[in-house]
C-alpha cells in the first residue's frame, strides 16, 4: 500500500486517539451524549485547540528570541561577569538558547502526550487488520508525528522567518537545518524517554524501593519544563563562557563548543551576516563547524527513520512488567478513607507523568527559586524577597494544579462510585495532596534559604499564615468540581483535554490563595508582624467559608 493509504488510515486512527484523549472511554467512562460523529468532531477540535496552545508558546519563544537579536547591539554593549561579548557571539548565544528551548519544550510536550497516545490502544486495534507491515509502520509514524504537527510546524517556520526578518534572508535560510534538527531530536528524545517510561515507570511493580525509582524517573521527566527558567538563570554565565572561549581563539575548548549541538547551528546565521571573522573562526574552526553540522543532519535523518520504525513496536507492546519476579510477602495495610484516597492518588501519579508533573512542578519550582535565592548573597533583602516569592509560587502553583487531581477520579470512576466512600473523604484526600505539595515546596525553600535569609521566624510565619488559604482554595475548587460532576458528569483534565475547565475553576481558587499574599504586600509599609497577622486572619476566614462548602457537600453522601 502507498503513503496515501497510510495517511488515509492514520486519519481515521487519529480520530480514535483524540476520542480516547478527550473522553477516555477505554478507562470506563460512560459514552457522551450526542451522535458519535459529533463527539469525534468535538474531540478533534479540542485536541487542535491544545496543540495551538503549545504552538503559541513556541511561537512566543521565536518572537522573543528575535526581539533579543534585534536588541543585540545594546545588550552586547554591557559585559557579562566582566567578559566583553561581541554582537555575533551574543547572536549565536541567543540562538543556542532558542534552539535549546525548542528541543526541551517539544520533548516535554511529547512526554506528556505519549501515554495518552499509547493508552488509546489505536495501534493494537490496527494490528490484526489486513494491512501490510510497511503501511502499519507508516501509519504509526504518521500518528506519532501528528501529535506534534502544529507545534513542530511553528518551530520549523516561525524561527527561520523571525531570524530572517532580523538578520537577513540568508541568516533565515541558515536557520532551517538548525530547526529541522531541533524537531527531529526532540521527537526522537520523546520516543526514547517515552519508551523508557513505559518500561520502567508505567510497568513498574509495586512496593519496596521501586516507588523511589519511579519518582526519580519522573523528576527527570519534569526537568525539560524547567529549561526556560534554567536558561534565563544561566544565560549571563553562558554568554560570558561563550565570549571567553571564542576570544581565546583556536583551542580544544573552542573546537568542542563548535562541535556541540545546538551551538553548531546557532553559529551559522551570524556567520552569514559577518562572515567567519565575526566569531573569530579560522579555516580549522569552519571545517569543524561544517563537519559537525553535516553529522547532526545525518543523525537527525536517521532519528526520523528510527522513529518511524519504532513507534509501532512501542504502540503494541503492553507495559513490560517482570513476569517471573516473586510475589511480595507484604500484606494489605488499610488506612482511613481520606488517607486511602491520598495514597491512591500518589501511587497513580507515580506511574502517570501528567499527574507526576502536577505534583512535582510546584516543588521543583520552589527548589529552583530557592537555589537562586541561595546564590544572591547572605542576609540580603533581595534573598528574603525571593524566598517569600518562592513560597508564593509554591502556594499558587499548588492551587492552580489542584483541580487536575480531581481527574484521577475519572479513572475507574464507575467502580469507585459503588464503594462506600463519601465525597468528604475524597475531597479531604485531595486537599491533603495539594496542602502537601505546598508544605513540601515551602519547607524546601525554608531549608535552602535558611542559611542565607537569617530570618527563619518570618519565613515560618509566612508559610503558616498562607497555609489555610491554600487549603481553602483547594477545598473550594474540589467542592465546586464535585457539584459540577454531579450535574454534568466528570470533567477530564489533561494537557489534551479539558484544559479550559481546569483553568476556569482555578481562577477563584487563585483569588482565594492570592488574597492573603496581596494583603501582605499591600501592608509592606506596616510592621511585618502586623502584615503577617492580617494575612493569617484573611486565610483563616477563607477557610471558615470554604470548609463547610466542601465538607458539608451533600451531607457527606457517598460518591
Amino acid at each position: 500500500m502507498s503513503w496515501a493509504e497510510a495517511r488515509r488510515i492514520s486519519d481515521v486512527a487519529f480520530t480514535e486517539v483524540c476520542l480516547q484523549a478527550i473522553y477516555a472511554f477505554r478507562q470506563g467512562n460512560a459514552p457522551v451524549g450526542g451522535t458519535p460523529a459529533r463527539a469525534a468532531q468535538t474531540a478533534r477540535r479540542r485536541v487542535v485547540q491544545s496543540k495551538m496552545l503549545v504552538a503559541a508558546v513556541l511561537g512566543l519563544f521565536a518572537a522573543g528570541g528575535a526581539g533579543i537579536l534585534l536588541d543585540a547591539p545594546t545588550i552586547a554593549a554591557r559585559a557579562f561577569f566582566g567578559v566583553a561579548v561581541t554582537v555575533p557571539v551574543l547572536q549565536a548565544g541567543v540562538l543556542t538558547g532558542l534552539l535549546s528551548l525548542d528541543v526541551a519544550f517539544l520533548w516535554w510536550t511529547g512526554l506528556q502526550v505519549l501515554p495518552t497516545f499509547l493508552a488509546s490502544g489505536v495501534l493494537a486495534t490496527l494490528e490484526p487488520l489486513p494491512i501490510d507491515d510497511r503501511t502499519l509502520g507508516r501509519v504509526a509514524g504518521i500518528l506519532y508525528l501528528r501529535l506534534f504537527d502544529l507545534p513542530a510546524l511553528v518551530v520549523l517556520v516561525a524561527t527561520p522567518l523571525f531570524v530572517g526578518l532580523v538578520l537577513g534572508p540568508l541568516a533565515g535560510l541558515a536557520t532551517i537545518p538548525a530547526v529541522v534538527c531541533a524537531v527531529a531530536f526532540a521527537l526522537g528524545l520523546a520516543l526514547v524517554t517515552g519508551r523508557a517510561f513505559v518500561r520502567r515507570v508505567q510497568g513498574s511493580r509495586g512496593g519496596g524501593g521501586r516507588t523511589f525509582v519511579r519518582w526519580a524517573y519522573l523528576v527527570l521527566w519534569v526537568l525539560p519544563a524547567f529549561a526556560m527558567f534554567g536558561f534565563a538563570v544561566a544565560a549571563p554565565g553562558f554568554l560570558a563562557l561563550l565570549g571567553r572561549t571564542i576570544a581565546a581563539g583556536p583551542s580544544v575548548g573552542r573546537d568542542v563548543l563548535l562541535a556541540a549541538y545546538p551551538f553548531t547551528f546557532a553559529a551559522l546565521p551570524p556567520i552569514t551576516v559577518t562572515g567567519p571573522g565575526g566569531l573569530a573562526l579560522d579555516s580549522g574552526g569552519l571545517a569543524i563547524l561544517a563537519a559537525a553540522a553535516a553529522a547532526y543532519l545525518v543523525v537527525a535523518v536517521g532519528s526520523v527513520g528510527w522513529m518511524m520504525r519504532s513507534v509501532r513496536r512501542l504502540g503494541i507492546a503492553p507495559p513490560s512488567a517482570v513476569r517471573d519476579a516473586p510475589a511480595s510477602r507484604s500484606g494489605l495495610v488499610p488506612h482511613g478513607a481520606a488517607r486511602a484516597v491520598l495514597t491512591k492518588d500518589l501511587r497513580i501519579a507515580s506511574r502517570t507523568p501528567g499527574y507526576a508533573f502536577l505534583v512535582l512542578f510546584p516543588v521543583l519550582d520552589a527548589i529552583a527559586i530557592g537555589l537562586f535565592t541561595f546564590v544572591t548573597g547572605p542576609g540580603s533583602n533581595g534573598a528574603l524577597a525571593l524566598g517569600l516569592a518562592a513560597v508564593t509560587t509554591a502556594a499558587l502553583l499548588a492551587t492552580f494544579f489542584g483541580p487536575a487531581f480531581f481527574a484521577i477520579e475519572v479513572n475507574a470512576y464507575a467502580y469507585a462510585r459503588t464503594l462506600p466512600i463519601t465525597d468528604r473523604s475524597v475531597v479531604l484526600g485531595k486537599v491533603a495532596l495539594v496542602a502537601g505539595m505546598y508544605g513540601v515546596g515551602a519547607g524546601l525553600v525554608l531549608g535552602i534559604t535558611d542559611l542565607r535569609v537569617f530570618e527563619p521566624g518570618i519565613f515560618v510565619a509566612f508559610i503558616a499564615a498562607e497555609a489555610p488559604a491554600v487549603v481553602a482554595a483547594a477545598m473550594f475548587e474540589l467542592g465546586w468540581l464535585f457539584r459540577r460532576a454531579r450535574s454534568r458528569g466528570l470533567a477530564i483534565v489533561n494537557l489534551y483535554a479539558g484544559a479550559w475547565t481546569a483553568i476556569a475553576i482555578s481562577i477563584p481558587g487563585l483569588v482565594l490563595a492570592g488574597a492573603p499574599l496581596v494583603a501582605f504586600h499591600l501592608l509592606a509599609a506596616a510592621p511585618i508582624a502586623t502584615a503577617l497577622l492580617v494575612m493569617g486572619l484573611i486565610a483563616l476566614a477563607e477557610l471558615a467559608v470554604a470548609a463547610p462548602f466542601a465538607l458539608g457537600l451533600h451531607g457527606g453522601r457517598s460518591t
Partner: protein
Amino acid sequence: MASDPRPDPSTPLVVDDLSVVYGERQAVHHLSLTVRPGEVYGLLGSNGAGKSSTIKSIVGLVPPSTGRISVFGWDAQREALQVKVRIGYVPETSMLYEALTPREFLEFVASVRALPRTVASERAESYAAAFRLGSELDEPIASLSMGTRQKVLIIAAILHQPPLLVLDEPLHSLDPRAVRIMKELLGRYVAGTGRGVLFSTHTMEVAQQLCHRVGILDHGLLRSEGSLAELRERAARGDATLEEVFLRLTREDEGLDDAVRAFEGT
C-alpha cells in the same frame, strides 16, 4: 402522606417497579424482583435486554427513573452509603485504576471498606492463592490479562464478605479453573446464611446449575421468573433445558433456522 414502610431488613434485595431511561430510550420497564435470603438469583437476557442497566441501578451507578430498590431494608437512593456497605459488585467491564497494582487496588478497597489489617491481608492472600495469583499482584493492572483483572475484581467484591453479591457477567474471560471455583463458591456463599447473590449471565448452562431462581429479561421487561421447573411449566416444555425455555419465553427461537442459514456459505 405517610412514607412507604421499610422493606423487610432480612431480604437481601427488593426491586420494585424499576424503570431506567437513557434519553429517549427506556432500558428497563417497571421491573420488580426479589432476591431472598440464601438465594442465588440469575438475571438472564439477550444483549441489550436491560440486565446491566438493572444492576447499575442497584449499585448506584444509574439513577432509576421510577421505582424503588432496597438492600436489607435500606433504600438505595436515600441511604446509598448503607447499601454500598452491604454490596460486593463485579462490573461487566474491568473498570479499574490501571496505574495501580492489584495489591494497591485491594488495599484501597479494604481502606474504604474499613477492614482491619489482619482480616484484609488474610482474605486477600487466601483468595489470591485460590485464583493462583502470585507476582501479578504487584504488577500494574494495565499489564494484566482480562481474566486476571476479572479475578482481581472478584476478590475486591468479596473482600468484605458482603451479605449481597451483585455480579454482572462474573465468569466472563475467566479460565476454566476459576469458573469452577466461582460455581462452587456462589452456592456455598449463600447456603444456610441470610446472604443473597444476584448475577447476570448469557450462559444458560451456568444459570441452570447455580440459580435457585432466574428472571428472564427481554427488551427491559421481566418476561418470566421462577425456578427452572416453574419456567419449564410456563414454557410448556417438560424436559427442556434452560436455554430452550429462555428462547421459547423470549420468542428468540423464532427464525433461528433462517439465522443459521444466513451464515452458511461464509
